[in-house]
């Protein structure tokens, strides 16, 4: 029973509301999502609180695991879906979409070396 005057909380849902953001991204690395860009992405994703998932068709990878990302075997020009869910999702999706859309092996700022 909710005491009068306190904010209502939906049954079973966490107090932090879900802020899932999904964006399509075309992979711009000319060699695809190989080891270094995958490692750079996982490292960048790991800095956010939000859950990060990357979809290639029916396959899904945990964006914080570089070996998981390698299992997508995503070649250059692949259309991926980036899904980010958490309190810092908006910042995360911006930074991570930039990384996937960057042609440089290690992303825009050279992370992952």
């Amino acid at each position: 029973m909710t005491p009068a005057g306190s904010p209502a909380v939906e049954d079973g849902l966490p107090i932090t509301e879900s802020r899932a953001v999904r964006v399509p991204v075309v992979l711009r690395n000319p060699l695809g999502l190989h080891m270094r860009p995958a490692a750079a992405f996982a490292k960048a994703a790991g800095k956010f609180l939000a859950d990060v998932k990357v979809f290639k068709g029916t396959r899904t990878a945990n964006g914080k695991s570089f070996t998981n990302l390698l299992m997508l075997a995503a070649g250059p020009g692949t259309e991926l879906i980036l899904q980010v869910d958490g309190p810092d999702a908006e910042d995360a999706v911006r930074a991570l979409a930039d990384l996937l859309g960057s042609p440089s092996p290690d992303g825009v700022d050279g992370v992952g070396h």
Partner: protein
Amino acid sequence: MKEFLIREALVPNMVAATKEEAVRELVGALHAAGYFTAEGVPAVVKEIMRREGLGSTGIGRGVAIPHSRFDGLPKLVGALGLSRAGVPFQSIDGHDVHLIFLLVSRPDQPGPHLHLLETIVRVSESDEFLAAMRACETQDQMWELIQTTPDPWAQDEQ
């Protein structure tokens, strides 16, 4: 995997004790199998070590995938070495590596490289595969295991 790993470059008992020795040993095995000229070997070793300097290719679970790209190969080629003692590789999980897949790919063919990385990561998640490979004592046993291990991506995309 069976398309790219070279039978004559399967090394069941590596002698290397360091990462650089391991890379030399496996590039040497590819050379012995006919893939590089003697003059080309140091350049390949140097390029693989330069790539390691950008971040270890030790993916954890005792597996590493040192690699580079090299002009003039007919196709992507790979060697696989087993180290009984383990080789320090600065892996992400901090453990020494026992299976070293060394790949040299063509710069103009990213697809096979990506598929082979995927395959190696997938088989490395299998305790059964890792145990079976580490139990191999001869090149023939290694080759047999590789022949009977399905390429997961091939099944997936059929």
